[in-house]
């Protein structure tokens, strides 16, 4: 566990905010009855409808609670998968440099970076091929260069240091060296990249929702709420609620970026 989360103590605030958001949203949703979710007109915030209703008469607070949980979980899973995949790929290609002769990773990164992701997503959405699974795969395919390039560089520079060379000389297996030497160091260096990755993925997700290619369920999502708010500016609570929802989803990642902004405490270091 220590290898993957070297900033354990500092990441506590992120974890707490994540659980808190989930808990509040679930509790909020539990308080609703199906009939209570509908109203006939876009209504401003009131005691009955805390954040008002949409033009279709749906309670915005219910939509927010549902879509925040969905988006947050989807984002967390996607970010984790993309991060682990890209860092692992970078470490493997950095440590076993010979692999680059067969699969030139830097060239592949350049090719991947030059493909317009949004266009691909819109085309897939147009043909109704966009669902959470395909989106996840596409994110893995297009977002891995963000961390892989850095982790490969770090691994390549670290593999020629004396402790690593000596460990190789002493017959310690490559897997052990990667696990004990490379993973902690590179994870520690790349954890600050997670919020950047999360924002990048979240932007893509929201833009797709905004354009009307939502795939996280049948009900409205955050992006579509913003789109509806933009179309109905006479009911500003819709747009403001949508933007507030976006901020809440990003809150754990914002806290993470603050908590890992400084160097993590070194393992076993003595304190005064």
């Amino acid at each position, binding site marked *: 566990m220590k290898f993957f989360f070297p900033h354990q103590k500092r990441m506590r605030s992120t974890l707490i905010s994540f659980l808190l958001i989930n808990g509040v949203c679930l509790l909020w949703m539990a308080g609703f009855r199906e009939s209570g979710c509908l109203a006939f007109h876009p209504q401003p915030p009131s005691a009955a409808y805390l954040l008002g209703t949409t033009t279709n008469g749906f309670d915005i607070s219910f939509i927010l609670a549902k879509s925040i949980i969905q988006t947050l979980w989807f984002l967390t899973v996607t970010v984790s998968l993309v991060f682990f995949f890209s860092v692992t790929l970078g470490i493997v290609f950095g440590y076993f440099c010979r692999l680059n002769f067969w699969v030139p990773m830097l060239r592949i990164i350049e090719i991947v970076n030059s493909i317009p992701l949004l266009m691909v997503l819109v085309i897939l959405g147009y043909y109704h091929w966009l669902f959470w699974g395909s989106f996840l795969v596409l994110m893995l395919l297009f977002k891995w260069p963000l961390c892989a390039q850095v982790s490969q560089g770090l691994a390549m520079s670290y593999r020629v240091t004396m402790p690593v060379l*000596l460990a190789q*000389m*002493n*017959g310690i*297996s490559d897997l052990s060296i990667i696990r*004990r030497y490379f993973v902690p160091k590179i994870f520690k260096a790349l954890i600050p990249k997670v919020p950047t990755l999360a924002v990048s993925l979240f932007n893509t997700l929201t833009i797709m929702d905004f354009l009307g290619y939502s795939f996280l369920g049948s009900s409205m999502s955050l992006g579509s709420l913003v789109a509806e708010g933009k179309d109905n500016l006479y009911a500003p609570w819709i747009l403001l609620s949508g933007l507030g929802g976006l901020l809440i989803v990003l809150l754990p990642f914002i806290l993470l970026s603050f908590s890992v902004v400084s160097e993590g405490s*070194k393992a076993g*270091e003595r*304190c*005064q």
Partner: protein
Amino acid sequence: MKNNASLDPILCLEDLHFGWREKKISAPLFDGASLAIYPGEAVGLWAKNGTGKTTLCHCILGILKAKSSRLKIMNQSLMDTSKAEWRAVLKQATFYCPGYTLNYDVSLKRYVKTELQKIIKTHRNWFEDLAQKLDFRDGKSLLTYVLCKSGEGIRLGLLVRALRQSAGLIILDEPFEDLPPVWRSVILEEFSRQLCRSRIGILCVSHHPDVLAWCHRSVTISDQKIVPMTLQGNKKERGKNFALPERKTKNHQILFCLEWHPMNKKNHPNIMVRAGEKRRIPLTLKPLILDGIIQAVLTQKIDRSILSQTSSLQICGTDILEGLTKATSEEIRQHVVFLPQAHHVFSKDVSFLDYFKMLFESQKEKSAEQFWKTVYDWMHIFSVPETLLTRSLMSVSKGQAQKLALIQGLLRARTKLYIMVAPYSGLDQKSCEILDCVVQELCKQDKGFLMLEAE
């Protein structure tokens, strides 16, 4: 008669309280320690490994913040001056020559280069004289050596810079560890002159008896206080706590054989290590022995630029210059242990425990119980506290880290040849004796030792 100003101490440290906190338990290191150094005085600091010699230097220089202390440097009190002023005092009136755990990075190299260039501008003749005394052709070749040799070079550069400190406190933390003895005597002589000429005081942390003998007085750390070193304290303790049975059948296999190219034969004698032998060679051969062989064994490619001076290099019967196959390099890996200094063995981010776990994962001969028993036995032999295992390189003293580096090398049972680089560096006298004893006993077991040392 000395005037009042010259009687004021350069360093006046009183009532120093400092301690590390481990797992919320405070472990005091200094409890009311006091030290005064007067102008023209060199004070030697000797103590066992892990008692806080380097920590004391760091407390004086403000690298570590003491719980409480009354500190005065050149009559400027820490209590009465602002932070910025104190920083200026430290910058002008102190010079620190750190030990080997320091990272010799580019910025330090740049600093040494700038400082030496300033010295060359202002004291050219002195620098040229010093270079000749240190057996360099001229000042330029001394400067080249300082900037090209990352470890020893920068240490020498820092010492040369310390020699030109006009006033204040010079702190030398084990300064002559990997420098040749000739250089040590030249530099100490220069320091003696500087002590008479300028208003400086020297605090010299060292385990070396010659360096301590050069100092005007020596102090040690005892019961969390700094006390004058008495003969009792300096008395050598016998370190014989390790013995192995002698082998009945003696093996005289040649484990290491290096023959120089005829062009180089005049400068160096050939090196040969048989089973049960210990051979010492100068530290200047480190790049050839260590880098050349490691590179060859790991990549199975010979770096001719490093090994060009040799005509034959055999390790455990395998001629490296003829080329290595996977099988032969694997055999060398099994039978030879390379043991450089601790900061080369351990990574800064990995705790010692993780390193030993990694060693355990790589060897299949012993069970976990046997392996950890052996580790603790070795730790007991070298008097290393067991709690040290959970720490990492940067949080233990140089001596303790060196002991752990030795222990990890001595763990492997199938080893025939140990190639050690400056194995005594950072070790106190008792530990040096223990290491001598261990080497002696292992030699009885037909192990060979090739030690690269400054002396």
